[in-house]
C-alpha cells in the first residue's frame, strides 16, 4: 500500500464509510419498524430508537417516517447525509466518480424531501437504499484496491460493528468483522501492530468499539 493520502482525506473517507453505512442500516431498521407499526406493534419505532438512546414520538406510521428521518435528534438522516456529502467533496479525488454522483443524488433526495415539506414514503426509502447499494457496488466491482478504498471500508465495517453491538446481534459474526477490520489496519500500515504495541487479538477482553476507535486514532496521524 504505497498510495499517498493526507490524514484529512483519510479521515473523511473513513467518516464517509461510517455515515453511509449508518444511513443504510438505519433505513433497514426503519423499514422493519414501519411494517410492524402498521398493524403489529405501534411502539416498534419507539423501541428501535431507544437503541440509539433517542426518545422518539410519532403519531401513526407516516409520521414515524418523518420523525425518524427528519426529526430533531442526532440520528436525523438528512443531517448525516449533509456530513457524508461534505466528506465526499473533501475526499473527491479519491472517490470513484460514479459513487460520488450517487452520494450527491442521495443528498439531494433527502434535502428535496426535507426542504419541500413533502411527505416521505417507503418509495423514498427504497430509492435511498438503492443509491447506497450502487455506491458500495462501485467499490465492490474494483479489482485493485487502494488505501483510499480501505479507509472507506474501514469506516463501513466499524459502523457495522457498532450496529451489531447495539442490536445485540450474533457475537460470532461480529468477531469475524472485527478480524476483517484488524487486517485492514495492517494493510494500511505495515507497522501498525508495532505502533499499537500489542496484538490486535488482545482487544477481545475490552470494549470492542472503544478499542477500534483507539486503533483508528493510532492509524491516522495528524
Amino acid at each position, binding site marked *: 500500500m504505497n498510495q*499517498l493520502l*493526507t490524514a484529512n482525506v*483519510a479521515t473523511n473517507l473513513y467518516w464517509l464509510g461510517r455515515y453511509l453505512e449508518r444511513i443504510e442500516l438505519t433505513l433497514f431498521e426503519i423499514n422493519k419498524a414501519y411494517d410492524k407499526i402498521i398493524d403489529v406493534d405501534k411502539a416498534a419505532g419507539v423501541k428501535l430508537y431507544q437503541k440509539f438512546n433517542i426518545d422518539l414520538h410519532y403519531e401513526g406510521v407516516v409520521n414515524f417516517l418523518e420523525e425518524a428521518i427528519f426529526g430533531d435528534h442526532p440520528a436525523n438522516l438528512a443531517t448525516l447525509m449533509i456530513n457524508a456529502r461534505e466528506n465526499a*467533496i473533501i475526499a473527491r479525488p479519491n472517490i470513484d466518480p460514479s459513487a460520488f454522483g450517487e452520494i450527491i443524488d442521495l443528498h439531494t433526495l433527502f434535502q428535496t424531501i426535507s426542504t419541500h415539506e413533502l411527505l416521505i414514503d417507503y418509495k423514498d426509502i427504497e430509492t435511498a437504499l438503492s443509491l447506497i447499494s450502487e455506491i458500495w457496488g462501485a467499490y465492490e466491482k474494483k479489482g485493485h484496491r487502494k488505501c483510499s478504498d480501505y479507509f472507506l471500508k474501514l469506516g463501513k465495517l466499524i459502523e457495522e460493528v457498532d450496529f451489531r453491538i447495539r442490536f445485540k446481534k450474533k457475537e460470532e459474526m461480529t468477531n469475524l468483522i472485527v478480524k476483517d477490520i484488524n487486517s485492514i489496519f495492517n494493510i494500511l500500515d505495515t507497522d501498525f501492530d508495532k505502533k499499537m504495541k500489542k496484538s490486535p487479538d488482545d482487544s477481545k477482553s475490552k470494549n470492542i468499539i472503544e478499542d477500534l476507535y483507539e486503533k483508528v486514532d493510532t492509524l*491516522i*496521524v495528524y
Partner: protein
Amino acid sequence: MLEKSTELHKKFWEIFEKQDRKKINEFKMYMDRFAINFNLYKDGNFIEQSLPFDVIPRIISKSEFSKIEKGLQQRVTALNLFLEDIYTDAKIVKEGIIPIEFIERASGYLKEFVGFSPSKKIRTHINGIDLVKDSSNDEWVILEDNLRVPSGSSYPLSIRDTYRKIYPEFFETLNITPIKSYPKFITNAMNYVNTGGINVLMTPGRFNSAYYEHSYLAEKIGAQLVRANELEVINKKVYFKNYNGKKIQVGAIYRRLDDDFIDPKFFNPESLIGVPGVVEAYLNNNVALLNAIGNGVSDDKGIYYFVPKMIEYYLNEEPILKNAPTYLPYFPEDMNYVMKHIEKLVIKDVAEAGGYGVLFGHAMTREEIENLKRVIKADPRRFIAQELIEFYDEKCYLNNELVNRKADFRAYVVMGEDVKVWNCGLTRYALEEGNYLVNSSQGGGFKDTWVMEL
C-alpha cells in the same frame, strides 16, 4: 453583433437543428450531480452553485487558433523573460523601456525577491490570457494577462466529457480537436521544474470559490491535493505529511492561493492557509512554486500597456496579438487624450480584478465623469484607459431561445520545457444583453470552445 457565419458554424447548426433540445437540461443535471460548482459568499453565507452553461459552443477554426497559439506563446515567453529580468538585472528598466515607478508601484511587485531565480528560470508556468475578437477588424485582442493563479480550466474540461455523452453526433461528425492534453501540460511543467520530490496542488480549502477546480485538477494531474497544514517545512525542505505519519519530500507545488497568504512567516502573519517556511524553501530552490512568487507585477493593468514593448525588447519580434488600445494617464500626452475623450473610454482601476473597478465612460453621468477626472488627475498611476472594443457577441441558447451575448475567451498557456497553448479555453458570456462584463463573479456563464477544421 455576431461574427460572420462560416462553414464550420453552418455544420454545427445543421446538426444542432436535429438534436433533442430537452437533453440540454442534462448538462445542468450533470453539473449538479458532480458538484461542478463555483462557490460564492453572499451576505455572509456560503453558497454552492454551478456556473451557468450555454450549449452553443464558441467555434474557432484551426487556422485562426493557430495564430492565437503563436501569439500567446510569444506573449508568455516575453512575460516570463520580463519577470526574470525585473527580479534580477532589470535591464528593461535600465534601458528606459519601462519607467521604474511602474514596476515599483505595481501591487504584485515584491522587492524582497530581487536577486532570486526560480527553478529553470521559469515563472509563468500556468497562465490565463483573456482575449476578445474585435468586430471592427476581426482581430483577436488581448484584454488581460493572468499570471498569478488563473482559474476556470476545469469547467470546459468537465463539460466536454459531458457534451460528448449527451450529444455524441457533433463529435462523431465534426472535426473537433480533442482537449484532454491540458492536465498533461501541467504535469509536464511541474515535473520539469520539480526540484526533487512529489507534486502537490495546494488549496486554501473546501470553502474556496474554486475548490471544485482544485480537487478536479489535482486528480487529473496526478498531484496530491493538500491544505497548508498537510505540508511541513523541515530544514528548508517541504514535506507532505502522509496519513501514517511518514513525511515525503515535495518538489513542486501548484499553489492555488495568492502570494500574500502563502507563508505567514514571510507575508501576512494572519494567514491560516499558508505554510510557514515555504518561502525560505523556495528561495533555497528546494521546492518549485507554480506560479512563481511576485508574478502579480505582470498582471498589473499598468504593466499590461508595456507588454508589446517587452515582446519587441526581449524577442526582437513584432507582437502577433495586439493589446486593446490603451492610454496611461501617467504620460501627459495620454492624460490629455483621456480627459478629452473620457466619455467613450473604459477606465480601469489597476488595483482591481474580476470585473470590479471598471467604469464605462458612456454610461456615466456628467457629474460622475467630472469626479472621475479629478480622481485620475490626483493619482494618474492608479488608472488606465482603453478604447471600448466592440467585441463580437456569441449566440446563446438561454431559456429556450437563441439570444446574443458578449463573450470573451480565456486561453490557457502552460510553460515548462516548452510553451503549450491548450486548444480549448473558457468562453465566458455576459448575463444580460449588451453587458460587457463576462466574469463569473459578475454572474456570467460559460460555453465550450471548439477548435475545428473542415
